[in-house]
């Protein structure tokens, strides 16, 4: 038996976050009129236990095995996503969506969460296979396909938030694999055009900046022309795409820009979340004593808006503590990535870190109206089995990578 110690700080941080999270899920269940969240904390503890077991098992496997298993796992994930899209069901607010895998009327879980891990592994395997950094976007077609398949299936559910996570993972991992920064900007440029097209002047400014970048970076002629054309097309397409978005998606985007346009319905979530957090002050209203939560002003208080409960009950101090733990967790993950022994390991570790970071930014930002409401969970905090388990499996992978990496002391490496 060799002991695994290289990942200790990481595991302990993740465990602290999970326990902090369970405590907050428990509090979220303490409302004046009982809600579905009342007993969620027990289930959450069970999921945490599952996750810990899963993490332990995963940490005993070898990185080479994960590299090998990445392809079948990825393919299976995509098949399950396809299946979910076809036959899946919704839950809660998004009852009309298809993000849950349902078999025989039982909701088994959200395959999207697991697909995030398998896609990270698959992308790491794909990028690790290359020997030189790409100088052309065309060289990126294979990783692009790897990300595009699950992305399209998730967009079809539709799950805008997770789709954003996949984009984040893609760009972060490309960056880590050594793709030059200007190339990433060029890659992202059509999407940026799509967003900025709503303001002609903004789009114009962006377009000029893009032209300058193309002239300075000098990509391949054909590619440069293609990118500029793509930007123009996106600028034109944007209004058409807007029309094709479903009403609730449009509404969410509009309410993100100004929550007060609909204070009773769509804007309600954001306004009440801000009120909850803002009224917390330095020290909060006290654990279990948040009035916004207790009196049901706060929606989805045990899942998407769990961080608002932290803000309300434990105040700025509690929020800072949670954010500090997250910061440390991500630092450790980056450390694992930078001290990994091989390309697959370093990419996988960084992919996991970036996945968490996007989750944190989007979820926490949403509670303060810095991000649109997309309903993606906060790692280790939000109530939900699939995500809890997949986060802990990711921890297990990180621990394994760490223990095989340069940072691990001899004798510490797991057998």
């Amino acid at each position, binding site marked *: 038996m060799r002991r695994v110690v290289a990942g200790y700080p990481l595991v302990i941080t993740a465990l602290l976050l999970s326990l902090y999270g369970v405590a907050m899920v428990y509090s979220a269940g303490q409302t*004046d*009129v009982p809600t579905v969240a009342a007993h969620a904390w027990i289930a959450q503890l069970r999921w945490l236990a599952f996750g810990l077991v899963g993490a332990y098992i995963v940490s005993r496997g070898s990185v080479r095995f994960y590299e090998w298993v990445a392809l079948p796992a990825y393919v299976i994930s995509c098949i399950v996503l396809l299946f979910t899209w076809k036959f899946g069901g919704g839950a809660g607010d998004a009852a009309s969506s298809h993000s849950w895998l349902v078999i025989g009327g039982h909701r088994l879980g959200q395959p999207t969460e697991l697909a995030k891990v398998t896609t990270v592994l698959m992308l790491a395997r794909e*990028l690790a296979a*290359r*020997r*030189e*950094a*790409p100088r052309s976007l065309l060289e990126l077609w294979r990783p692009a396909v790897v990300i595009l398949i699950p992305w399209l299936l998730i967009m079809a559910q539709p799950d805008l938030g997770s789709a954003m996570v996949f984009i984040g993972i893609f760009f972060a991992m490309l*960056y*880590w*694999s*050594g793709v030059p920064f200007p190339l990433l900007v060029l890659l992202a440029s059509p999407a940026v055009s799509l967003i900025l097209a709503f303001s002609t002047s903004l789009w114009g400014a962006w377009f000029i900046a893009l032209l300058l970048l193309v002239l300075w970076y000098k990509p391949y002629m054909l590619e440069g022309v293609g990118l500029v054309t793509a930007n123009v097309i996106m600028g034109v397409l944007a209004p058409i795409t807007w029309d094709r978005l479903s009403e609730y998606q449009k509404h969410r985007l509009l309410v993100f820009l100004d929550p007060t346009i609909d204070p009773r319905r769509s804007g309600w979530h954001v306004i*009440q979340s*801000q*009120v*909850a*957090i*803002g*009224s*917390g*002050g*330095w020290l909060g209203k006290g654990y279990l004593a948040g*009035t*916004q939560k207790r*009196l*049901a*002003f706060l929606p989805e208080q045990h899942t998407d808006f769990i961080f608002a409960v932290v*803000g309300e009950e434990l*105040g*700025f101090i509690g*929020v*800072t503590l949670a*954010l*500090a733990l*997250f*910061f440390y967790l*991500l*630092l450790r993950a*980056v*450390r694992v*990535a*930078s001290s990994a022994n*091989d*390309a697959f390991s*370093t990419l996988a570790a*960084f992919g996991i*870190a970036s996945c968490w*970071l996007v989750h944190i*930014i989007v979820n*926490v*930002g949403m509670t*303060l109206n*810095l991000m649109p409401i997309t309903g993606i969970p906060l790692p280790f905090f939000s109530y939900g089995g699939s995500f809890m388990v997949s986060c802990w499996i990711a921890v297990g992978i990180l621990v394994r990578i760490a223990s095989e990496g340069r940072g691990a002391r001899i004798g510490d490496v797991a057998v």
Partner: protein
Amino acid sequence: MSYHPNEIARRARQATWILGGVFLVLVGAFFRTQVVQNRVYTLQSEENRLREVPLPAPRGIIYDRHNQVIAENVPGYSVSILSPSADSLRASLQRLSMIIQLSPEQIDLSVRRYRRAPNRPTVVLPDASFDVVSVLEERRIEFPGLIIQSAPKRYYPDGAAVASFVGYVGEITEAELSSSKYQGYKAGQVVGKGGLERQYEDRLRGREGVRFVEVDARGRVVREAGARQDLRPEAADPLYTNIDLDLQRSVATLFGDSLQGGAIAIDPQSGGVLALYSAPSYDPNRFIGGISSELWKQLNNDPRRPLFNKVTQGRYPPGSTWKLATATVALEQGLVALDDHMPIPCTGGYQFGNRYFHCWDKKGHGSVSLQRAIEVSCDVYFYQLGLKVGLSRLVAGGIALGARDRSGIDLPDEARPIFPTADVEDYYDRRYGKRNWSQAVVLNLAIGQGENDQTVANMGRFYTALATDGTAATPEIVRRRPERARIFQLSQEQLEHVRAALAGVVSRGTASSAQIQGVVLAGKTGTAQNAQDLLHNHAWFVGFAPARDPQIVVAVMLEFGGHGDRAARIASKIIARYLKAVPTQLINTDG
């Protein structure tokens, strides 16, 4: 690709910086929301969860001069409802109407109340019966936001007997809410609507308290108490009046159901109003908790005008009771003495120019002195006296007596009497056109007809001066510092003679049917023609007793009541009751 450790380390440093930046932004954003804007959001969070339930303050109790209760508060219940929206309120009320009586009008009214103050509980039943309350309490769980609370309810033990001066209370109207007089009032509050209740609203209202209840996001009441310290309501101090409740009751009984008119009894020394009654009256208790629209219509359409105060708002020609004003002005000017006779004796009428002016008694009174003329109310004597004084002096004297002024009684909406202005010539020119009138107007004015309409209260005030030393006391219902104003200058002796003449009216004149055993009653009858109904005169009596040392001044006016002695008999009973003496029903002369 480039996975050289140096490359990786460089990117790891960049990634660390980016991470640091991201978390710094997040922490900064939370600092801004939680620390910088904490006050704003705390307020919003409190507004979210707390609803103010007003606790009505008991209105001040109104006492009579012997500390008997005129208006008090009895326990009552109000039913109100807290709602997040007008639609939800309407839905709740629809469901409520299935178990308690609730008309569509009441539902509409409640929704209107809601729109005015959505954050306050909307009053559904301002005065719920115990039965309704117990039904609701039983099924309370079905109605989140339902608030049943005890609310002090105004009660007038003597009901209709005191309505004329006490008024009534009711929910504040939208018009009142938007007026500056009711600044600081909130929708749903109860305010005085008439009489003392309105006149002394500021002193009677007390201070409303607040109870905080905690509601959840759907407006359901989650916690009834302890959410925040309640503010107790503060009861108003009692109001002490000069009213003699026993006397007031007997005045109401004397008027009964058939008589129509008004009476006021004043203590001439202090001006304290002992009784004030306008007949027919109404039961002010029926207004509490909202009057039914049928009763409101009925009261407003009643030709006998129960809501119209005939003592302070009604204006009537004073008739012969005004002869004392003519006499006083003449005596003050030194134009006549009480035993002076007029050149032309009364033969039942008086020829002035081409018009013949009748005396009320067609048999005539012969040649009489001023004293006797007062006793028998001889019109012919006063026609000549009026001519002797002259129009402008008569009007100026009348104005000095307060003929154009309100009595100043502490009741709202007192009417201003009608009387010519000091620029008499212009006044009549304006009224009838230049040279379209003659000096004959002075004949009418001298006997209390013509351009002269007085309130009962104002006539009472004038007689307080006759009963004392020429200073009139402002009638006061609520005890204050008495106010007196000299309105004429007569010597003590002259005044005693006038009072003797007034005593003669009762002992051997037009009001001999109003005598009281053992008490010398002094007063003057009046039988006033009124423009609306020439067949039915208004009957007046204004007087005081005992004649030598007046304790009480009474003015009684009966609308369409015929001859003044009918009013005199009522007045004498009022006075007898007050002085605890027995009126003697002697002969019923029609003099």
